[in-house]
């Protein structure tokens, strides 16, 4: 329609309406009403026209909520909940609203941000965003599940080591009890203390990295991402060095001394490029944005990586940068991309064989997401590293370890992993 056509259309529809009289009374209310109408219709039309998978989102939610053969009423309720969820997830300009939310929290000086679907997120005194472990975990179940695995491994002649990784809230002796809002008590480190104590009481080898990690002299800003719940690559690198030293000292490993020194690595920093899991929930305005520093070896490498997912097995061989690093997570310009996954993650089983290192050491690492950079870095100093994640690994771990027969099986978790299915070893 041409401009004059629009004018004719409008005049035809408001003929007889004197605009001056129309806004003579209650002008501000009428302007507000027009603005309101514009907002809700823009939201509706925007959602319908720009959200490509609104219907798919609904169906996915529906299939997750409603089991097959459910009664009619349950299907109806499931459909209603799924529709509400799809509308929420497909809200027009959703990320901008998340930023607005963050702005409102920042303006009010809030250190606690309640996300009904996720729980509370807190801003620490260092300006980092984290969640908190709000309850004591029943670590006895985790310990009891570990004993049969350990006993079985002993029987098979395979050593076992539990490695306690840190959490984003420091232990109280390092000031962790003052990081969060005063009324928040974080139980992560207490849960870890109890688990390590339980393991040691059962004569199971444990290496608690937290003291050396937090006592390293590096600040929390260096050790952990501001906007993600994971440790930074610098922090993971430090942790790997500690574990490597421990393996050399206690398991007679032959990892090259001083391998995990920054002199041997190239650090490439991508400034203001990463908004992690916490940051995505609170927005960039509130949570900020991280630099992402990639560590890659400054020496020759030749590694064979095998990625196993069900019956699919893909093997590649080459330099660390080519086969271990998944650079698409770095190259994607979207800062909300999970850059942390550059160090390989979410495979049922990963196998790294270092074709150049001068030892025949082997490890099986049962890990959580904190382990991603660790096993990638360890592959630079250990002949064979395998990594599995109990959330997706489906085989019997004891049988698997018996067949692989590594020098040591390392169970390596951060302080918030004492939950199902992390200790379900499919035995």
């Amino acid at each position: 329609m041409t401009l004059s056509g629009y004018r004719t259309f409008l005049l035809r529809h408001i003929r007889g309406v004197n605009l001056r009289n129309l806004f003579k009374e209650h002008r501000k209310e009428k302007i507000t009403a027009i603005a309101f109408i514009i907002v809700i219709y823009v939201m509706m039309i925007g959602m319908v026209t720009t959200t490509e998978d609104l219907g798919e989102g609904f169906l996915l939610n529906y299939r997750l909520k409603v089991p097959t053969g459910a009664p009619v009423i349950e299907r109806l309720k499931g459909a209603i909940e799924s529709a509400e969820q799809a509308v929420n997830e497909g809200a027009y300009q959703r990320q901008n609203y998340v930023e607005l939310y963050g702005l409102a929290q920042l303006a009010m000086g809030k250190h606690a941000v309640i996300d009904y679907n996720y729980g509370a997120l807190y801003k620490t005194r260092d300006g980092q965003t984290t969640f908190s472990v709000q309850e004591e975990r029943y670590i006895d179940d985790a310990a009891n599940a570990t004993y049969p695995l350990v006993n079985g491994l002993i029987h098979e002649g395979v050593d076992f080591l539990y490695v306690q990784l840190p959490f984003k809230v420091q232990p109280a002796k390092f000031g962790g009890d003052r990081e969060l809002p005063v009324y928040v008590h974080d139980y992560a480190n207490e849960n870890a203390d109890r688990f390590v104590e339980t393991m040691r009481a059962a004569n199971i080898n444990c290496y608690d990295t937290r003291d050396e990690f937090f006592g390293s002299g590096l600040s929390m800003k260096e050790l952990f991402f501001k906007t993600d719940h994971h440790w930074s690559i610098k922090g993971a690198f430090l942790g790997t060095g500690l574990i490597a030293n421990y393996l050399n000292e206690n398991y007679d490993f032959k990892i090259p001394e001083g391998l995990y020194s920054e002199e041997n690595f190239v650090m490439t920093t991508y400034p203001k490029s990463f908004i992690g899991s916490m940051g995505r929930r609170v927005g960039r305005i509130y949570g900020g944005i991280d630099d992402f520093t990639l560590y890659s070896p400054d020496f020759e490498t030749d590694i064979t990586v095998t990625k196993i997912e069900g019956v699919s097995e893909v093997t590649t061989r080459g330099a660390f940068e080519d086969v271990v690093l998944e650079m698409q997570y770095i190259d994607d310009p979207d800062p909300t991309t999970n850059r942390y996954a550059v160090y390989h993650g979410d495979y049922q089983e990963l196998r790294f064989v270092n074709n150049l290192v001068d030892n025949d050491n082997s490890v099986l690492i049962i890990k959580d997401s904190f382990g991603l950079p660790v096993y990638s870095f360890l592959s630079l100093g250990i002949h064979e590293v395998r990594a599995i994640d109990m959330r997706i690994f489906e085989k019997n771990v004891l049988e698997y370890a018996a067949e692989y027969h590594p020098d040591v099986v390392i169970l390596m978790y951060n302080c918030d992993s004492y939950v199902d299915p992390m200790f379900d070893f499919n035995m």
Partner: protein
Amino acid sequence: MLFSSLIFLVVFLPCVLFIYYALLRKHRHLQNCFLLVASLGFYAWGEPWFVLVMFLSICCNYGFGLLVDKHRHDRKKARAVITLSLVFNLGIIFIFKYLMFTLENINALTGAEITVPEIALPIGISFFTFQAISYVIDVYREKGQVQRNLLNVGLYISFFPQLIAGPIIRYEVVSEQIMNRRETFDDFSLGVCRFLVGLAKKGLLANAFAVVADKAFAVATTDYCSVSFAWLGAIAYTLQIYYDFSGYSDMAIGLGRMFGFKFPENFNYPYISKSCSEFWRRWHISLGSWFRDYVYISLGGSRVGKGRLVFNLLVVWFLTGLWHGANWTFICWGLMYFVLISIEKVTGWEKRLSRIDDKKVNAIAHVYTMFMVILGWVFFRAETIGDALTYVSIMFGNSDVAFFDKFFIGFLKENAVYFFFGLLFCAPVARKIRAWVEDKIGEANPLVSAVYTVLLIGGLLVTMAYLIKGAYNPFIYFNF
């Protein structure tokens, strides 16, 4: 479906407005049919099965209305119809809301082992059932024309703005408006603004206080709670329930006005009251007036001897407490007001107060009223009488608790802005600011319009941000 939900704001409301105004503009009957369908859909969205209960209520009360109109000149028959309608409507509430409570108490008192069925409570049943009762009685009292069209009765009972959380709209108020209302841009705009104020009250203020109140009541009964945190939690709940309930009423009144209906006010700054009697003339006005007109006056009202007056008050306040939920805590809460209001009436407290023009006396009266109101809300919020008494004992410093603790400091610091504005707007401050601005600068000044629009639309956007974020959005009317 809730008003403070994204699906209502960006799907339901735009669609309903479009169809109502763009497609059905010149057809009042079709508009009413459409609003009825939309209202039933609105209710069914949250209660797929219980919409049938509402449908049954609509059909039966339509029939009762016709019967009572037919037999209005035969007093005996008319009373029989009214009795039947009361039995039916109150029977519905009893079965869904009070049967389990009654059986549990019979078992507890007598040692019987009657099986207590698990019955879900249809949301809003107390509201729409009272409206249905109002319809039949107002038809009988000739305060409204009987509706020969079932759909119009349905619309009155189930109209979505006031369906879930009131206000309880008496039939006499809307009987003419069902067919003879006139939608104007002025009313629509005023309705929108009222809706936005209510949305901000609920989405921004009430939900924030809910976080504090829920934590205080949780730690008081399971862990350790200081005196100050107990008070903070009680005050937070006092503010939560006011902003939640009055916010919802604002949204209901605003939405009604968008469709040409004018509903009466339901809250009038209750926290500035100087007596409990005054509090109940300002709090949930539609409920108070419903009980006054249909129960209190029917029992004789105030024009009786003191003994009968006290009895009438006892009945009304017992029922008021019971209406709020099937729990002894609500009954206790209602009876607390019975005691206080009876004392006020018998001693003539209000009349004496109105004769004294002394700021100190008024301040004391205000503090007394708010003190009792806050204590009452503790009973209202608590799960059991025991929990309420535990909480109150902490508030008054039992031997084991400290005065301050980290919860009080932390939550006060975190929510200082909310408490500031929450307490400020309990009084008609916004109204006075607006009147002052319009007086000094002039309502026609573009700056006034701009600031007003920015504030309300800004509030809308921030509230939507909270909804999209999945921020805490509790629904506190599940007992009603």
